[in-house]
């Protein structure tokens, strides 16, 4: 098992390395140039070139890539092309906001999805089951941006219950901050609940048909104990895997949701930086998203191992 974990960890490291290369190449291929964007149309070619030189863009791509990698190994994300500031400091404040939003969304979405899936499985083929099925089909087919704009149109514009932009300001009370966050969290919850709910339902239904659940019934165990002791331990592995994958989906979904609600998080920073052709910031944000995604996938694998005695213990 230790070796298995090491191997997964090693694969994860390689994947992160591969993503740095992809991000760097994508940045190189991006059309446009930060310096001409920053200085405007009136700038002379000399001033543009001078700005490029001052950011070290005269070096060869290989040297810049290796320099970036070397910096990353020391925890240095590099300097922003546009304003020459430390990217690390730039991101730090945004990362907190993003984690808050993602955390809130996950805290609502995961228990909700587990509950819906379990209810649908226990009341299989009843109206509850069908309602969950239809609901999840609709939400899984709805893109984040579509739901977000519909929610804004109805809840913010028509009914005027909630603000349409979500910018927490210093001095707001916790209650006010939460109010500001309702719409983006709602969007993320609605679009990410479906997979977990359906997977939970499918896993529990499959487990209920297993012989060992029949055995538990013939042992005279009450239904609650059968669910807790005999069904849930066996669905933990597949369900935890899809939960973790959904967390990864939430992180990626943030890029769109933050932009729509003008929420000052990592996703919005990344989109802004693309507009400004601030390639180093785009690369740093992309790397953080990629690493999160890879880490969560690794975590899903680890959980699957932890929940499966066949993998956990030698024969």
């Amino acid at each position, binding site marked *: 098992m230790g070796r298995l974990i090491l191997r997964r960890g090693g694969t994860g490291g390689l994947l992160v390395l591969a993503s740095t290369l992809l991000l760097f190449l994508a940045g190189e291929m991006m059309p446009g140039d930060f310096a001409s964007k920053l200085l405007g149309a009136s700038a002379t070619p000399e001033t543009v070139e001078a700005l490029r030189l001052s950011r070290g863009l005269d070096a060869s791509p290989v040297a810049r890539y290796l320099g970036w990698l070397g910096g990353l190994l020391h925890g240095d994300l590099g300097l922003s092309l546009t304003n020459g500031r430390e990217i690390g400091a730039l991101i730090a404040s945004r990362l907190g906001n993003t984690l808050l939003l993602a955390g809130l969304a996950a805290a609502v979405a995961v228990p909700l999805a587990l509950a819906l899936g379990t209810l649908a499985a226990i009341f299989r083929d009843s109206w509850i089951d069908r309602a969950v099925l239809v609901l999840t089909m609709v939400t899984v087919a709805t893109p984040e941006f579509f739901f977000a704009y519909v929610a804004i149109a109805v809840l913010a514009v028509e009914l005027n219950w909630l603000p349409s932009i979500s910018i927490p300001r210093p001095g707001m009370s916790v209650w006010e901050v939460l109010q500001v966050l309702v719409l983006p969290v709602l969007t993320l919850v609605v679009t990410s609940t479906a997979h977990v709910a359906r997977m939970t339902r499918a896993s529990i239904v499959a487990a209920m048909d297993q012989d060992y659940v029949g*055995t538990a019934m*013939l*042992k*005279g165990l009450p239904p609650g104990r059968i669910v807790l002791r005999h069904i849930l331990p*066996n669905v933990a592995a597949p369900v935890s895997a899809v939960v973790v994958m959904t967390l990864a989906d939430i992180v990626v979904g943030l890029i769109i949701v933050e932009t729509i609600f003008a929420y000052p998080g990592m996703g919005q920073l990344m989109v802004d930086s693309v507009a400004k052709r601030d390639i180093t910031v785009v690369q740093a944000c992309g790397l953080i998203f990629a690493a999160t995604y890879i880490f969560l996938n690794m975590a899903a694998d680890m959980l699957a191992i932890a*929940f499966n*005695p066949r993998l956990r213990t030698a024969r």
Partner: protein
Amino acid sequence: MKPEPAMQVPLLDIDRLAIEAPGRDGAPLRLIDGVSLQLAPGRVLGLIGESGAGKSTLGLAALGVLRGGQRVASGEVRLAGQALGRLDPRAMRRLRGREVAYVAQSAAAAFNPAQRLIDQVTETALACGMSRADARARATGLFARLGLPDPERFGQRFPHQASGGQLQRAMTAMAMCAGPRLIVFDEPTTALDVTTQIEVLVAVRSAIREEGMAALYISHDLALVAQMADEIMVLRHGRMVEHGPVRQVIDAPKSPYTQALIGARGLVRTPRPAAPPILQIRGLDAAYGEMKVIGGLTLCVPEGGTLAVIGESGSGKSTLGRAICGLLPWSAGEIRFAGRPLSAGLRRRSRAELKEIQLIHQLPDLALNPRRSVGAAIGAALERFRGLRGRAAREETARLLAQVELDPGLAARLPGALSGGQKQRVCIARALAAEPRLIICDEVTSALDPLIAEGVLKLLSRLQAETGASYLFITHDFGAVASIADEVAVMRQGSLVASGPLAEVFAAPSDPYTAALLEAVPQLSPGWLDEIAARRSLPDTARKDHAV
């Protein structure tokens, strides 16, 4: 002294029970039709019958369980004086595990893979209010009594860390742990090899006797039931056919059906004179990836005769069949067919070579495409190997179906509309369609009920006489071997342990493994298991206290 059964209140009293399930056309289907039985404490009743006879339905009814849509049409089941039909779910649950427990056919599937065995074994005892320490001590004692290795630590294993035979014994321990008065055993050894089966039988029987529990022992194997039970009840189509003490049912069966069941075991083949080999295998090695399955195997199939390959699961006998057919390329050695060497891989064999060797699988359900009619399945073989199409193919299909004793009208049916025995006959007809010289029969009767299997064996013998085809008959069923084989090869862990003419190998086995296998084949004589147990002088006290 055990009091006479008649003087006691019966522990289990099934009174004119009828159970119905919704049928295909909406009309109710009678699964159990007016069966009555009484079981006194400490007695063992063997329930016997073919699949669909209602044995399991009756067994589960003793636990108050009705499966998918079943309902009690009339009659009732009383356990320890309580009518199960009138209990609410809570009271019903209190009976299960404490008064009556269940041992399933496949213990491997019946254990929760995510929990240690000890937690599952002690679960009902704990629910009854036994302390954790007492329950564990009780479980450990039962593990020891059932002959499980290292009883102190055995319970720490997960199900995947124990073998099939061990799990079956662990499940018996689980059923016994809370000290129920009745245990329902539903085909508990059907999935096991003969040598494993006998260990489980000896252990389970001595445990039942020592614990003084009553049991319903369900099986399709009359010989097994004769060893385990005090009385036998024969069921057919949900009705009781015969019921009486073991001796009486075995020695003087009254109903023709019971007589046929006993007779099915007596089919014996007259051996053929030795013939030159049609298939010669020399020094064969075969492996699945890294795992070597067959090593240095040498044997011959006589032309027009039958070689039976016997062995337990994992002995490599099915792998041998796959290698001969070309489904699994071998790594060393040679296979010669009619004097010419065969290529190892399927792709390098000519169509003529493929035609000459046909394979019949163990499970006809999996061997027939469920979406393809019987006629289409046979017709495909006719077209590929003999170039027959259209009317000629239809006529030949009808002839083949008649040859395997099926109604030619079945050609239009899908396999799902046929019974297990009919499906296996279709597979035989499909193999015959190629007019092969060698047919590899891989456990062709092991999924069938005894009487159906007997019919298939008779059919195969007749077809051999008619077509002159040679058989390589792979099986773990010794009864089948005696009725079809001229020569026998015994395999163990991928190599040959014994081989030769049937009479020689069976009458005087020269090696201990063959002798042990033969000894483990259940015999109808009711004292057989006692003799085995005595000969093995098990460390327990199996016979000392028959009457607790």
